[in-house]
């Protein structure tokens, strides 16, 4: 995966390896682009807001969510779920205004707003008729 093996500065060479034996899960995402911004919706159910880390560097957006310990209130009868920390990296090609990136976490979904830089926004240019 090209987004896992990075990069010119070589401080990140592969997906970080967990030390506590749990798996990394890839959050499901929706990515929407409109005129003003790119919005990313990432599902990280079961992660408390304090354990979400969002990092933007060298046009790469890192999403990390540390899962709370799995609950175990009795005899397990059925388990379809997968437990582990969430991790995903995106390479953003568009010109973004880094200083205005914001994020909300609501009902287990991280919503990242990535506003476009002024230069990248579509602009109507009037044609002068002489």
């Amino acid at each position, binding site marked *: 995966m090209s987004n896992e093996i990075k990069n010119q500065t070589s401080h990140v060479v592969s997906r970080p390896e967990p030390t506590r034996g749990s798996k990394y899960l890839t959050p*499901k995402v929706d*990515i929407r682009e409109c005129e003003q911004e790119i919005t990313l919706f990432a599902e990280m159910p079961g992660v408390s807001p304090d354990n979400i880390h969002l990092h933007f560097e060298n046009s790469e957006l890192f999403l990390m969510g540390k899962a709370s310990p799995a609950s175990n209130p009795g005899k397990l009868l059925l388990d379809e779920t997968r437990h582990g920390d969430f991790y995903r990296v995106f390479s953003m090609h568009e010109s973004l205004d880094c200083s205005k990136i914001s994020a909300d976490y609501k*009902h287990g979904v991280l919503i990242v707003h990535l506003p476009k830089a002024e230069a990248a926004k579509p602009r109507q240019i009037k044609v002068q008729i002489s």
Partner: protein
Amino acid sequence: MSMNRLSQCDPWANFARLQQELNQAFGLASLSSSGPTLKVFEDGSALVLEAVVPGYNLEEIEITVHDANQLTIKGEHKDVKTEAKETWHRKERDLGKFSRTLQFAFPIDSEKVQAKLENGILKLVLPKHESVVGRKIPIHTQN
């Protein structure tokens, strides 16, 4: 034991999950929505059920107990906002409607069911009906 029957009755569930993961790996939208994944525990006199429902709020989820031992969880996204001139680069999430029904081996006390939604996980505590648990009868002493 009916829970074990439940998990065995859909041999295609694992294939559906595999397909979802492959679609996700190749950046394709999920083709089917099979409902939330579940975890069920038995804790003495109650069952504890956790359903993974990211993105749904409490108003969008309906929980029904019917025929004393059947539980249905339904969900429907209602606040889907659309922007003018929007383009979707990825659509991996299962948004829309779902419905899942579970049948338990014993009746549930529907009056005492508790539901909590936290960080996209719906947690239900389903007390067994007193006809199963037995009812403790207080003894009054006369001194």
